[in-house]
């Protein structure tokens, strides 16, 4: 059917997945309260949340398969970009909930609120991805952020978790202010908060020059904070390390994906005419993020913190696609987000298991000799690490290659070389986990080795994600095509990057 917003029902239909998920979020919240009265562990609320994601997924599928939109200027986009991004969010949230089930129960966290916060954050991301209007984007961003602040500080009994929550909240609020100020200035410059209108005003030269620069700068800072790009990344390692591990997985995967989709939407469709202005800045941000994230990850002794820095590095790779700003790079970005979400959550699933469904086994030494003790878990982790490193045979390679292809098409050769070389750096710290697992014997007597707890649901999630990573690494055709379709026709003007050559 065609959505042209001629009746108010169309608005509801256009936002169907978000609406469904929001309803489930509230349901889970209420169910949690009543469950706690009866003294249960609250796993049911987790399953209820998963059911909500499933229904939202069905709604998303309905929009994906059978709905067209009237134009490309409406506030709510019903385009493939949004719907593809929704798949990523739903997948990420689903996996994050599955690996949270045993953790939340074992750590005696309040289950209902936890899962409903995950759902609300997901709704926020979906709203962000759906909006073609800066105000609506801000709304979605705040909905997501506030839920995630709470998730980061969710374990009140743990000092580091509380610290993570507070740190994230204070800095995040600051970044939101930057973003809002940037939006205000852009509105002043272009006379609209609608991205399509902004794009037209910019290409017509009708914008107020004096407000554009500061607006762009503030907007970039606000978004760079959300994707934890250097130099606005300071919060990331502490927050990722302090937050409960399943929440970290959710933040590192889905939240980052949401922020990148918005970044793509704003920069590649709204501010495309200013490509010459922002690409230079983002070039440096991207290069610094890749170099810094990878170099600092080298020296981490906690696997959780290493993954936090590696997620910063992955943000750097993704920024290359934003700088390149062509359809290949944008499709690469989406494909990368899909793969990245799966592999990040899979890696954290192992971290949660080795950490005894808590925070006790996150040091690299805790992985020593894991290959002999838990061979299947270790094989899964090895494949996930290879995927994170972007090694051929895994989807991580196809994704990274896709980004390189986009960079090459835009003749960003220096950035491509930086990406390649920092990838080599990343091999070191990913391989380090592998060699602790396989090449060192388990510690001798005297050092207690904790239990490794991998419940059935986590195992299923892990095996499914590893299978997906390998399958998409060997036969990426279908997923690539989906990502390409998601991008087709999104960009109002295809920006021409300067041919730099060698």
């Amino acid at each position, binding site marked *: 059917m065609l959505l042209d917003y001629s009746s108010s029902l169309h608005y509801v239909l256009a936002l169907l997945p978000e609406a469904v998920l929001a309803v489930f979020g509230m349901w889970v919240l209420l169910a949690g309260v009543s469950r706690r009265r009866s003294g249960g562990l609250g796993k049911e609320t987790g399953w209820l949340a998963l059911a909500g994601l499933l229904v939202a997924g069905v709604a998303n599928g309905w929009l994906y398969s059978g709905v067209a939109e009237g134009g490309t200027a409406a506030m709510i986009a019903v385009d493939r970009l949004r719907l593809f991004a929704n798949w990523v969010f739903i997948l990420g949230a689903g996996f994050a909930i599955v690996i949270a089930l045993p953790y939340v129960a074992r750590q005696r966290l309040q289950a209902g609120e936890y899962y409903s916060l995950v759902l609300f954050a997901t709704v926020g991301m979906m709203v962000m991805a759906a909006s073609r209007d800066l105000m609506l984007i801000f709304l979605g961003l705040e909905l997501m952020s506030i839920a995630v602040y709470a998730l980061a500080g969710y374990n009140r009994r743990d000092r580091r978790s509380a610290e993570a929550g507070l740190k994230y909240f204070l800095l995040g609020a600051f970044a939101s202010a930057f973003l809002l100020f940037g939006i205000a200035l852009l509105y002043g410059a272009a006379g609209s908060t609608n991205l399509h209108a902004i794009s037209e005003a910019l290409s017509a030269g009708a914008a107020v020059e004096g407000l554009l620069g500061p607006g762009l700068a503030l907007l970039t800072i606000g978004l760079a904070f959300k994707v934890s790009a250097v130099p606005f990344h300071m919060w990331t390692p502490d927050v990722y390390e302090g937050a409960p591990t399943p929440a970290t997985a959710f933040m590192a995967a889905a939240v980052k994906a949401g922020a990148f989709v918005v970044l793509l939407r704003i920069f590649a469709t709204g501010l495309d005419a200013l490509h010459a202005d922002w690409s230079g800045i983002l070039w440096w941000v991207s290069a610094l993020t890749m170099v810094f994230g990878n170099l600092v990850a080298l020296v981490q002794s906690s696997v959780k913190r290493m993954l936090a820095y590696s997620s910063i590095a992955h943000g750097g790779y993704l920024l290359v696609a934003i700088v390149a700003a062509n359809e290949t790079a944008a499709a690469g970005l989406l494909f990368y987000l899909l793969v990245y979400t799966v592999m990040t959550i899979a890696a954290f699933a192992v971290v949660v298991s080795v950490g005894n469904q808590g925070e006790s086994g996150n040091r690299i030494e805790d992985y020593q000799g894991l290959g002999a003790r838990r061979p299947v878990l270790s094989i899964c982790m090895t494949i996930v690490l290879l995927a994170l490193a972007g090694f051929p045979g895994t989807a991580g390679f196809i994704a990274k290659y896709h980004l390189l292809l986009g960079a090459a098409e835009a003749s960003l050769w220096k950035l*491509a070389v930086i990406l390649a070389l920092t990838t080599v750096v990343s*091999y070191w710290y990913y391989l380090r986990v592998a060699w602790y697992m396989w090449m060192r014997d388990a510690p001798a007597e005297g050092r207690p080795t904790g239990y490794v707890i991998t419940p059935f649901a986590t195992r299923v999630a892990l095996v499914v994600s590893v299978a997906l990573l390998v399958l998409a690494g060997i036969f990426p055709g279908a997923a690539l095509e989906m990502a390409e379709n998601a991008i087709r026709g999104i960009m109002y003007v295809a920006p021409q990057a300067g041919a730099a*050559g060698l």
Partner: protein
Amino acid sequence: MTELLAATRYEDWILHALIWLPLAGAAHVVASSRERAKLVAFGWSVLVFGLSLGLWWAYDPGDGGFAMVSSATWIEPWGVGYSLGLDGISIFMVLLTTLTSALAILGSFEYVKTRRRAFYSLMLLLQTGVVGFFLATDVFLFYVFFELTLVPMYFIVGIWGGERRIYAAVKFFLYTAVGSLLMLVAILYVYFASDTGSFAYDAFLHAELSLREQLWLFAAFALAFGIKVPIFPFHTWLPDAHVEAPTPGSVILASVLLKMGTYGFVRFALPFFPDAAQHPAVVSVMLALGVVGIIYAAWVAAVQPDAKKLVAYTSVAHMGFVVIGIFALTLNGLQGGMVVMISHGVSTGALFLLLGMMYERRHTRRIEDFGGIGRVAPLFATAFVVTALASIGLPGTSGFVGEFLALLGTFERYPIHAILAASGVVFAAYYMLPMVQRILFNKLDKPENRAFAELSRREIAVLGPLLALMIWIGVHPTPLLERMEPSLLVVLEQVEGGGAAAGADPIVSAAPSIGAEWGNPAD
């Protein structure tokens, strides 16, 4: 034989089988029991070797182009194909791989005692990667296989290796990765420059690139392959990896993995960037590095107390001959380089197997711990001497044919380099013969050595084929040379025909390669 092969439509399926059967074998090994793992792995590798032997008769040199080609779409949006082909260069690499893999697996029966299923499945996985690399005629596919070989080798060295195994494994991995990732960027550059939207080998051959571009791209390819070969000064990972690797790992590393580097030069770097490959600066640098590698490695080898490290350095020296043979860009030089590659694969592989047998018996690799072995184990000593002489390059052994041709080919154009490199043959005797003397002859003054066991039947079966090959290639190399000649001529034609713009104004782009006349294997 030919009729039999034709009757089974051998040419249609053999290349796919050679790549994927080892993978099936790896799966079978994982599923089998701990005790049977080695037999299962050996069975599969023998099956693959047996099948690959048919190539010798089935391959018709003809005009030297790719034979048995098959092509399918793999990743359609990017123009990536699953394309395979065999020519007079890759056939030898494939046969060498299938042979040494089977022998390395047989030779590791006593050496590998832990986690056997993992070990043998990794060995077979490695074989898939290597054979795929040699057979790929799609640049993307080639890159994937190139990288794919790293992971099994990393674990083979890192899990079953010696004291400093982790250091050696990571060093091996990172060194190779630096080169290959930069090569990936270069591959993308050529992909966009060729403007055909395809990663097919031919598309890359016909990309129009200016001399300046070619030099940069050649540098990226040369770094990747140069580290793999390894060319001095990128060789430092090799002694570590060789010394720490378990015997079968060393054998595969020396016999096959190093050849991926030199093969990469002949197959990809030279034909893709003919102007750069002929550029005087490039040629003089590569020749100089080759010569330095030969002499330097020989001197370093001469003072090693560890026999395995000594042999590791001889690899660097031998590969130096391959490098000068290739970059002399004469038919003799290329043929010589190819024969050295084969000969080195056979003789150094055998040396590592022999050292492994010594280590299994005495748990030491230090030369001074041995002495007088020839008296207690004459068969072992015979095998050792023949192999060492083949490694030195004594006339009548495979080493002589290769080094002689490589030097001859180099002398035609660069006499001074050839003369300097020839001194390496003398040095080879200088480092190899004292080792032979100290291990096999001298006095039998250490009581442990009196119990040095003679070769078992399994060990004879491992060494026999290799010794036979050393002699056969040394005495009658013509069947090899006539099979590789047409394909090498094609490479020469691609390089020299495409080199019209060499030395010309760097801004003017190169004339289309003569390689255009070469039949498109996809036709």
